[in-house]
């Protein structure tokens, strides 16, 4: 399944660039970018805005760590079942475990690969 709108939570410009590129290749048309965790939660909680179909979440974010964001999103009805893909340069198994436990759909390594996307979102 190819999501039409995706929100990308990433602070580094190059990583944003690369992610956008890959998502574009995947066929995503609308990409919203949040530069930090707080901004991401704000945008997602805004009932005036439509939810993206998929959330791409980096872990090392300023102001609010990715895991905190994940936990928060999972607590709220609105974002409880939002498909979230964690894309991070961390290879810490603990991070992986935490993310999956908190309900992330997948734990992917940077740089984001097309094949990974396909595999992760194929199920949907």
């Amino acid at each position, binding site marked *: 399944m190819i999501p039409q709108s995706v929100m990308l939570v990433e*602070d*580094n410009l190059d990583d944003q660039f690369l992610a956008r590129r890959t998502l574009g290749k995947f066929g995503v048309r609308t990409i919203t970018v949040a530069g930090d965790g707080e901004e991401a939660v704000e945008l997602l909680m805004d009932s005036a805005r439509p939810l993206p179909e998929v959330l791409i979440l980096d872990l090392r974010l*300023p102001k609010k760590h990715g895991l905190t964001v994940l936990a928060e999103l999972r607590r709220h009805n609105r974002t409880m079942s939002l498909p979230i893909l964690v894309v991070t*340069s961390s290879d810490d198994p603990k991070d992986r475990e935490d993310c999956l436990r908190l309900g992330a759909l997948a734990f992917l390594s940077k*740089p984001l690969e097309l094949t990974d996307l396909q595999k992760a979102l194929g199920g949907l």
Partner: protein
Amino acid sequence: MTNSNFDILFEAVHAAIIGTIFFFLLIQGKNLSAHQKSGWHFIIAGFGLFFFGTLLDITDNFSTLARFIFVGDTCFEAFLEKVVGYTFGSVLLAIGFWKFLPAVFPLRESEERLRKIIQLGPISMAIVAMDGTIEYINQRAVETFGYLPEDIPDMDSWWVLAYPDETYRKEVVAQWMGLLGKAMAGNGEIARREYQVTCKDGTLKTMVIFGVLVPDKVFVMFEDITERKLAEEALHQSEQYLQETQTVAGLGTYDYDLITGKWQNSAILSEIFGIGATYDRTLDGWISLIKPEDRQAMSDYLIHEVVGKCGKFDKEYRIIRSSDGEERWVHGLGEVKCDNQGRVVRMIGTIMDITDRKLAQEEIRRLNASLEALVAERTEELVRSNRDLASFCYAISHELRAPVARLRGLSQALLEEMAENPAAAGHCAERIMVASGQLQRVIDSVLQLSRLSQSSFTPYPLNMSAMAAEIATAMIREHPERQVELIIAEGITASGDPALVRLCLENLLGNAMKYTLRQPIARIEFGRDAASGAMFVRDNGIGFNMAHAEKLFEPFTRLHQEEEFAGSGIGLATVQRIIERHCGEIRAEAAPGTGATFFFTLAPLQRGKS
């Protein structure tokens, strides 16, 4: 001549002979000793009567003498002559000889006894004739010296065998002859002297040799004192050894007579106590030597524990040495001797100066304590260092992965865009440059941070105010577009490693500059907090949320969006490391939007100050 003439002649000769014997014995009898006299009188009487008989025998040849009844040829004369004279005389002679001869035998008997004594006696003896012939040596002599009578027939052979060394022999012979001469002139005793005699088997024996002069002979006696000499020597050596040992060990001995109340001591103890010959050697005298603080306790100990309970004395205590007033530690040991009623009459023991040992013990104790403190300190350091290392490695690895991932992604994109989209490809290439630069910087930061622990540390007194001013003004000069108000308090000094402290200030002041970027007028302050005594760097910049304060000093954590406030990410980690190396502390206070203050010290904070 007629028969009777011959008769008269022979009888006269007979009478003459008997008479001569009688008178001879009578005269000689004066020279006899008492014990011989008992038989002697009988012999004299016997011969007297016999003589009387022989005289009468002559008269019986003259019949004319018959008218005298008792002489001549009468039966009375015959009775006198034969019964009284000859028979009775013979009887008396017999009795006399019988008594006399045993009187000679006792001499033989005592001679026999003497011979047995000499033969079997416990000391070596010899009988030497005046001409030097050795007539006799007893069994003991043979056993002692090993020489058989054949070996030493005379004195010359004795001199040679017994004293093989010529020089010594000459001495001995001269001495013996001299003593012999004195004996002969005086009391007949050859005085006792020591000689080293060589035995047959070559061994040397120490003998005391002396002699007694008997008529025509010298009676020589030998007393073997070899064993005694050895024992004396051993005892002497053992005494010397004891003395030496005591001296070497510094062991003084004492002997305290509780009845007289006085004690005696060895020379070493005098040294230990520093007392002279005239010191008051009583109980009070001893107490006075003890350090005043310890006197009561020691006195009680002696009186109650030792004397009272008949126990041993064993205490280490302090004295004030009498000779120089120096305080010394001593270890006293003693044992008491009690009388029949169980009262203590005497105490003997040793005292040793153990000051050196005590000082060494103190030193060891002190060293151990400081060592333990050192170990505790090191352990803490190590734990902290390990903790740092763990989190550090974690932080580094993550920090490195990000730029590497970026490089990979960008390179991939470059490859893909290269053919179709040169502009995009160009963008990728540029970003690759930037990303690899980032990577480089991360690696450099890591190295810099790691080098901080190994770099040499030489503390100097530092003028912190001057250093801060210098760094800050240089920074301001580099950014002429900025408006910065700089407040540096004067006269702030501290002790630290100049290079490290400089780096620390560069980071803190650099941060202050960076985070006040948004302020129209940046205000950067360096001073000393009156309350805590810590130095501080204060800015009126963007500040941060105190909730995140604990992460502040961790390397690579960012409290602000990356691009906005570019930094190596290890600035504060570096600062913290430097502060730690100085055994100081650092703390941050801030509020979002109103700025931050970093309080720090370059030495352990004194507790108690708020």
